[in-house]
C-alpha cells in the first residue's frame, strides 16, 4: 500500500476560528475566545484509497477538509500533497494545485447553477483554468460526463439541472470535479441529500473512481456508509481523531469508548440486530471550551460507570490528554484505557 510520496499527508493540523464577542463583549473587555475546530489532526490518503472522516456535527470534519483544500488557513501543522508542503502556498501558487484536488459538495440541488446547461457547468472549470481549445474542452466534458456515469453524454449536454434527477445532478457535480482530472477528491457528505434508492449508485461511482486510482477523502456522519465503502475510517471528536483504522476493524472491534457508543446508536438494517443504544450523557461537546485531560472524559461511559476508577485510570483520564496509540496493525485509538 505504501507508495512514496503519498498523495495527501496531513500532520498535526490545527485550525481555530475566532468567536465574535459582539460590541457589548468588546466594551466589557471580555476575553477573546476561539473555537478549537481542529486540534492536532494527522492522517494520510494514498492513491486508490478512500478514507472516511466520521463524526457528529461540530466535530471538525468539514473544517479539516476545508483546511486540506486550503480554503481555510491552519494555525499550525502541515498539509503535503505528493510530498510538497502546500500549507503556506500563496493564492497564485495554489492555482495549479487546485486542479489536482477537487471538492464535491453535499447538495446537488444547490451546487449547480440552475441557468447553466450541463455542458456549461462541466466546462466552466476548464475555462477558469484556461485549459484546452474549444474542441479539446468539449471532448474533455464528454469524457468527464461518461466517467461520471452519464453516458452517452450527448443525452445530457444540453439539459438544465431541473431536467435531471437528484442522482444525475450529483453525477454532473462529480463530472465537474473530474473534468480537471484531479488526483484527490474531497467529498463532503456526497449522498446525504439523495434518496435512498440512488445513494448506492453515487457511492458505487466513487468506489469505481477510487479503484481507477483516485484518492478520496469522504466526510460523512453515517458510519454505515463509511463501513461499507471506505478503506479506512477516522472517527473525530471535538477536533481530534480519536480512533483510526481499517473500516471493518473500527466497526467490528472499536477500541475507543466514543466509537463504541456511536456504533450502538447507529440504527441497524436488520430488526433482529436491535441494540440498546448507549446514549451519551452530559453536555454536547463545545469546541470553545474543550475539557482538560481526555476531551471525551465528561461524557465517557467508562468514567461515568466507575470502570476507569476501578482500573486506577480516572486521574489520568481527567488530567492527561491521550495521544493516538497503535493497538493493532494500522488501528489506533486515543484512549488511556484501550
Amino acid at each position, binding site marked *: 500500500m505504501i507508495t512514496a510520496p503519498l498523495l495527501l499527508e496531513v500532520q498535526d493540523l490545527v485550525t481555530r476560528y475566532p468567536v465574535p464577542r459582539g460590541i457589548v463583549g468588546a466594551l466589557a473587555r471580555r476575553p477573546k475566545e476561539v473555537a478549537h475546530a481542529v486540534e492536532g489532526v494527522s492522517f494520510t490518503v494514498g492513491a486508490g484509497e478512500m478514507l472516511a472522516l466520521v463524526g*457528529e456535527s461540530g466535530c471538525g470534519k468539514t473544517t479539516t477538509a476545508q483546511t486540506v483544500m486550503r480554503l481555510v488557513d491552519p494555525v499550525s501543522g502541515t498539509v503535503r500533497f505528493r510530498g510538497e508542503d502546500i500549507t503556506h502556498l500563496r493564492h497564485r501558487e495554489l492555482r495549479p494545485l487546485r486542479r489536482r484536488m477537487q471538492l464535491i459538495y453535499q447538495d446537488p440541488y444547490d451546487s449547480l447553477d440552475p441557468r447553466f446547461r450541463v455542458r456549461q457547468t462541466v466546462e466552466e472549470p476548464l475555462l477558469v483554468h484556461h485549459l484546452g481549445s474549444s474542441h479539446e474542452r468539449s471532448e474533455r466534458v464528454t469524457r468527464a460526463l461518461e466517467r461520471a456515469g452519464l453516458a452517452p453524454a450527448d443525452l445530457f449536454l444540453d439539459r438544465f439541472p431541473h431536467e435531471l434527477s437528484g442522482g444525475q445532478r450529483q453525477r454532473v457535480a462529480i463530472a465537474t470535479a473530474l473534468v480537471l482530472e484531479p488526483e484527490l477528491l474531497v467529498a463532503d457528505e456526497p449522498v446525504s441529500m439523495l434518496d435512498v434508492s440512488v*445513494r448506492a449508485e453515487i457511492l458505487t461511482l466513487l468506489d469505481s473512481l477510487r479503484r481507477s486510482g483516485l484518492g478520496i477523502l469522504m466526510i460523512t456522519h453515517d458510519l*454505515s456508509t463509511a463501513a*461499507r465503502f471506505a478503506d479506512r475510517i477516522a472517527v473525530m471528536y471535538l477536533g481530534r481523531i480519536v480512533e483510526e483504522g481499517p473500516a471493518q476493524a473500527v*466497526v467490528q472491534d472499536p477500541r475507543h469508548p466514543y466509537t463504541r457508543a456511536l456504533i450502538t446508536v447507529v440504527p441497524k438494517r436488520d430488526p433482529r440486530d436491535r441494540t440498546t443504544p448507549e446514549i451519551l450523557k452530559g453536555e454536547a461537546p463545545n469546541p470553545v471550551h474543550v475539557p482538560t485531560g481526555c476531551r471525551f472524559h465528561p461524557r465517557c461511559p467508562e468514567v461515568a460507570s466507575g470502570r476507569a476508577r476501578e482500573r486506577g485510570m480516572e486521574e489520568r483520564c481527567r488530567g492527561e490528554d491521550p495521544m493516538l496509540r497503535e493497538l493493532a496493525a494500522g488501528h489506533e485509538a486515543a484512549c488511556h484505557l484501550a
Partner: protein
Amino acid sequence: MNGSGPLLEVQGLHVWFDLAGGRELHAVQGIDFDLGPGERMGLVGESGCGKTTAILAIMGLLPPSASAAGHVLLNGMDMYEAGEDSVRPHRWRDIAMVFQGAMNAFNPVRRIVDQIVEPMELHEIAEGRAARVRAGDLLELVGISARQASRYPHEFSGGMRQRAAIAMALACGPKVLLADEPTTALDVMIQAQVLELLTGLTRELGLSLILVTHDLPIVAQTCDRAAVMYAGKIVESGPTEDLFHTPRHPYTRLLFSATPDLYGRGEVISIPGTPPRLDREVLGCAFAPRCDMAFEPCPSVVPRTLPVAPGHGARCHLNDPAMRSAS
C-alpha cells in the same frame, strides 16, 4: 391488538391535487391500514411517494389545492363524517402530529412554555397556571428540565427543540402521534435519544405512533410493523422482521439492499430508474419498469394486495398463483 379493535383505521384514503390545465396529481391512491393502542408503525418510502401527504390527510391539514376521499376512523367513529366540523374536536386532542423540521418551527420571540400552553388554552384542556404546570410536566417527560421552560427557542440545542416539539404535540393528551421524519437533520446520538423517547411514550402512555421516514434502519430499530409506500400506494405491509427477512414485494427487497448496513453484509445496490409521474395514469404495477422480477402481467394489470402471511400483505403479481400460472 387487544380485542377492543384498532384505535385508528384508515380505509381507501385517496388524495389528489388539482394542477393547472385541469390535470390532477394523485399523490395517495387508496391506502388502508390500522393501528392498535400502543403500537408503533413505520410508514416508509422515498421522497414523493405520498407518505407525508397521507398523514397530513389523516390530520385534515391538507392545503386547499388538495382533495381527499376515504375514511379515517378513530375508535370506530368516522372523523370526517361532517368534514372539518367533525375533525376539529379530535385534532390535537386525540390525534397529533410532529411536523417535519418541527424543531425549526418555534416562534423565535416567544418562550417555549408559552408556545406549549397555547394549544392547551385553544382546546380548553387547561389554562393559566395549571397549563404552565402541565407544560413543565410535558417538558420533563421529554427529558427537558421544567426550569428551562421559560427559555427562548434559540437557547435550546437542535435535539432539545425537537423534543420540545414532541412535548408540544402531546400538549392535549393525544392517543395517536404522527411523526414526520422526526430525526432528519439530527446527529445519530440525538436521533437515538429522540427515538428512545418516542418508544418510551408508547410504552408508558400507551400512545400509538406512526413514524414516517425514508430511513429503513430507523424503522427496523423502532417499529413493530411497517408499511412501504411506492407511487401513492402501500405495496407491502407487515411485521418489520418479516419485511426484512422475507420481503414479498421486490421494491421492499431492493430498498433494503440499497441501504448500507453497519456490518457491511451483502452488496449495496441502487434501484435503477425513477418513480413514475403521478399526474398521469399508471398502467399495471407502478414499480414494473424498475422491477428486476417483472413478468407478463406487470406492465398491464394492476396488482391487488394479497395476504402472504399472518398480518403480512403485498401488492405484487409474484404472490398470485393465478397470474404466475397464466404466464
